[in-house]
């Protein structure tokens, strides 16, 4: 579950004030809204990348408002994937596990599991340069999922993909949710994508959350 309770976030001159929303546990919630409405700012606040000046943020059953991004247990998939150019696909999948000092066998088993889910097996020893857009997003998804986060934040991960690749990554996202039951907060502009993946659609409009129906 993700819950924002009367949260105020500043992003330069832009402010989101007294914002509240709940993403129920296990739900895939799409957050839509115009460009500049503050969707990414809100996502950054959930991830701990932007401090909140008022209110509280709950992830799972914990109040994470003052916790560091590392301690929140939130997986983030940014718009462009933001892959690390010096690491192979395998190293991306293992990154959070190495940071957490998982032993080699356990980390290896988790990497193999993710590679099978995300169909990354043949790419494991490749570096990001030369990967297709869909492959980049699958790697970014695997990297975010590796440490068993409580929730997954997707920041328009399909916006730069062509229609066929978007369908392919949509299938992967639906499959991941079926396997893990993870709570997803998905920022998107694309209504079709939201209809296909989300069981709840919210709109961020004039600094307020509006529900588009469950």
């Amino acid at each position: 579950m993700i819950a924002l309770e009367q949260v105020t976030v500043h992003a330069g001159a832009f402010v989101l004030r007294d914002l509240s929303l709940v993403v129920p546990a296990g739900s895939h919630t799409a957050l839509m809204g115009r460009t500049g409405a503050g969707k990414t700012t809100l996502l950054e606040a959930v991830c701990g990348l932007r401090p909140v000046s008022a209110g509280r943020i709950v992830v799972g059953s914990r109040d994470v408002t003052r916790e560091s991004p590392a301690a929140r247990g939130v997986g983030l998939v940014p718009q462009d994937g933001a892959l690390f150019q010096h690491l192979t696909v395998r190293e991306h999948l293992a990154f959070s596990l190495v940071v957490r000092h998982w032993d080699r066998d356990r980390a290896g088993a988790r990497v193999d599991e993710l590679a099978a889910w995300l169909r990354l097996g043949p790419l494991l020893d490749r570096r990001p340069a030369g990967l297709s857009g869909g492959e980049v997003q699958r790697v970014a998804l695997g990297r975010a999922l590796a440490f068993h986060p409580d929730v997954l934040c997707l920041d328009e991960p399909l916006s730069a993909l062509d229609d066929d690749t978007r369908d392919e990554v949509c299938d992967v996202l639906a499959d991941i949710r079926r396997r893990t039951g993870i709570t997803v907060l998905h920022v998107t502009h694309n209504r079709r994508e939201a209809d296909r993946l989300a069981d709840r659609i919210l709109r961020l409009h004039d600094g307020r959350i509006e529900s588009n129906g469950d």
Partner: protein
Amino acid sequence: MNQDPSHRPPVATRGSDRWFLACLALLGGTYVLLLAATVAADVLYTTPGHLWRALQSPEIRHAIRLSLVSCSLTTLLSLWVAVPIGYLMTRIRFPGQALLDALLDIPIVLPPLVIGLSLLILFQAPPLRALERVFPVTYAVPSIILAQFMVACAFAVRTLRATFEQISPRHEQVALTLGCTRAQAFWLVVLPSARKGVLTAATLAWARALGEFGPILVFSGATRMKTEVLPTTVYLELSVGNLEAAVAVSLLMVAAAVAVLLVLRGQGLSNAFGRPL
């Protein structure tokens, strides 16, 4: 009316394009010609015998050794300082940043002699004079490294600032969500992503240090077998009228400069092909 030919832009002919490009080439070519001519003049003036005799001279060998050692130490010191400065200046916003930015450029715009003079005056301050009684700096080898460092580090800072600006903060933010502390995100993500920029900064710092003369002359003196680096050798040989040795040493420095340029170009090529170094 639309068919009136006067509405159409004049059609560029291949001939006019050629003239335009030829004019640009002529203007740029004069500078290229001057550069090539100066290198050629040095090469034609000297002979293998001059070079050999220069390399046999104990003073020049000492200057080569001192130049290589001091430039390498200066490069390490410059990176040690420029990496944190470059990173902080691109990632943190703080009051007085514009002023600090201008301060960091001072060694680039200041006349080299003034840098040497400023260092000399600084080391007249009582605390530093006390230090010099234990650890001599002025007119000793450490002064060479300090004089080179003052200028070379400014170039390393500029290069690394540009490098860190090109690395999206999003990468670091993702690393934080994956469990990294800020320090881990820096070591595991930012610094490896900046490796080409670090190498470029190191190469530039080394090359700048090798060519540094003004601050060294003022702050370190020009004592043979003591504070003599390669530019000092050129100056000393010229001052006693030994043009052959001066040109031979100059050619060594030209060779070093070409080697540095090749390293930089190599990086550019690997960048273009998207391959890691």
